[in-house]
């Protein structure tokens, strides 16, 4: 079936409201970019979830990274992270002031940076979910193997399952989950089965093309009332995922509590370096004290990430809060939900 037929089918079969959460920021952006909501029946209510690693990154991490800069260290990080505000400043503002912040696209670029800055203390500030964790883990492993001394890692890596459990026990309106295909590539589709088995909510694992997403919505709306669990991204996702990637995660990391911006600390919802790699943990190496502050404003990113509010229901949206003056990380990250609504979601024509 092509996209247009799928849309027709969805609109014809759906008689009552269904609330579907797409967990992943990339899905949210694609939905908005395609203008999906302009062609789907109003009965399909698409809610964005917490699957953007930048949006849920702890403010305390940014604050610590800023302290490290003041201490003459170099911070290397991903593009979106430089714009996220800590309690007082952002890495972008620090960079403008002359502190050394290097933006990279892939953690693999770290090798070059270390080679070219041999006399500097380099800290990689990394965020991500299970998707990014294996690459970061393998970089750390290689660093240890080659006995690199001038690099350490300030990591805020999150796990998808604990936050989903948290959401599903708080938000009871959700009828179906569009689960993130790239996380599933690593973890395997079985990782998400608890959604259907424990929480009695249908779940479709989806890729990122228009056809993938529409198939997910079609499937979840078609079987309303009847529980379904399906992997619609089987071209990339195996039931047990990618064993190599899972192994390297287990080799380098251990599960730990993690702090979710606006939400708080959630048990075992993150990864930290295990004892064998503690020399590479910046927190350990420099005795950093991460204080999980929240920025004192009325940004309701937390409610948005839990699917309890839409960006358009935030009183600051578009009025005070926009990409040049983001109050919350949801307006910063290219995966952020508020940014997606800002970019694609006004009236047209």
């Amino acid at each position, binding site marked *: 079936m092509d*996209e247009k037929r799928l849309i027709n089918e969805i609109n014809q079969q759906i008689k009552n409201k269904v609330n579907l959460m797409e967990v992943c920021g990339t899905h949210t952006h694609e939905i908005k970019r395609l203008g999906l909501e*302009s062609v789907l029946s109003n009965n399909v209510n698409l809610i964005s979830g917490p699957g953007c690693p930048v949006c849920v990154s702890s403010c305390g991490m940014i604050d610590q990274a800023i302290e490290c800069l003041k201490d003459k260290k170099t911070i290397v990080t991903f593009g979106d992270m430089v714009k996220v505000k800590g309690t007082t400043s952002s890495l972008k503002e620090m960079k403008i002031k002359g502190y050394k912040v290097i933006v990279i696209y892939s953690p693999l670029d770290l090798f070059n940076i270390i080679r070219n800055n041999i006399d500097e203390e380099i800290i990689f500030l990394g965020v991500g979910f299970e998707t*990014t964790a294996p690459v970061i883990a393998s970089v750390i492993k290689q660093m240890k193997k080659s006995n690199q001394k001038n690099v350490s890692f300030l990591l805020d890596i999150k796990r998808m399952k604990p936050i989903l459990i948290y959401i599903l026990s708080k938000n009871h309106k959700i009828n179906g989950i569009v689960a993130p295909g790239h996380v599933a590539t690593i973890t395997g589709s079985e990782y998400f089965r608890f959604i259907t088995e424990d929480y009695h909510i249908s779940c479709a694992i989806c890729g990122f093309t228009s056809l993938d997403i529409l198939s997910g919505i079609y499937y979840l709306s078609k079987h309303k009332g009847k529980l379904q669990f399906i992997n619609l991204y089987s071209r990339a996702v195996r039931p047990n995922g990618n064993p190599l990637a899972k192994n390297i995660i287990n080799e380098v990391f251990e599960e730990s509590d993690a702090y979710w911006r606006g939400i708080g600390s959630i048990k075992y919802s993150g990864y930290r370096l295990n004892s064998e790699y503690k020399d590479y943990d910046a927190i350990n190496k420099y005795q950093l004290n991460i204080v999980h502050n929240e920025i004192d404003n009325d940004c309701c990113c937390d409610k948005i990430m839990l699917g309890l509010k839409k960006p358009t229901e935030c009183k600051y949206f578009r009025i005070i809060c*926009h990409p040049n003056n983001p109050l919350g990380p949801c307006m910063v990250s290219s995966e952020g939900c508020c940014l997606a609504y800002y*970019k694609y979601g006004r009236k047209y024509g």
Partner: protein
Amino acid sequence: MDKITLVHGEGGSVSEELIQNHIKKQFNNVYLKQKLDSALIDVSKKIAFTTDSYVVKPLFFSGGDIGRLAVSGTVNDLMTVFSTPLFLSCSFIIEEGFEMKSFNRILKSMKETCLEANVEIVTGDTKVVPKGDADGLYINTSGIGMVDKNHVKPLEEGDTIIVSGSLALHGTVILVDRYQLKMDMSITSDCKPLNYLLEVINKYKDGINMMRDPTRGGLGTLLNEISTQNKVTIEINEETIPFHDEVKAVNELLGIDPLYVSSEGRMVFVVKSEIANEMVNDLKKLEDGENASIIGRIKNKNRDSIVYMNTKIGGKRIVGALDDLILPRIC
């Protein structure tokens, strides 16, 4: 000397050697032979006058280099106001230690691009700054073009929007280099002077209401500018916007929307709808023009100044202005 040093910018005999044996050797013409501090040019008509600075990295990229870009960019800006480009100025700011071989390569490329564009560099300047104060080499060019008659006209409801070829090639080639993506690619930058369009432009000039080149910020930014400046609503159709498959793939990988990625050798025309089909057919016959396409229209006038897209699945969405730097996504 195989490197450019601070002495090359001091104005003494070493400077003179650089100017005579390298720069003037390439750009030789009657105006430079005047050996005056300013070129003297006879102008009897209305002129177009523009300037731009070029700080691209890398200096050499697949399909061009900073020199070709510096000539093309200014020539193309002159063309957007329906002028015939004639004369350029050229200023270099060079970092101490810059390889003479690279400098000569850039000069040669500028010379060749000038020949292609039928323009001459008639005045210029060279400064050398201490190592670390600049990044390699920067170029500024200004240009003068002769205007026959001002053909930029008000836009009307129903006007058709045409692009002269496949978009976002230049910006994508630069992205691949910047993020060191190890990809086997066939695409090269589209960087070139647009004089080759003159024949078609002259044929249809009464029907062309506006021409603009989608450089920095790409098509998305340009259409937003047109919409705001002219108070018009613009409608574009996703399926008709020509992007090479590799352009789509690279940008998808990086999480960047190619609508906002630059072209350096393309023109966007807003034309009367009656001539649109015929004009596109003529554009398609030009070298590298096979992907020329009608991409949208002026939907209404004096309503909202917005740009929206009919997406490939039949949805609608806003094409907003770019708010910040283009940065790739994380995962």
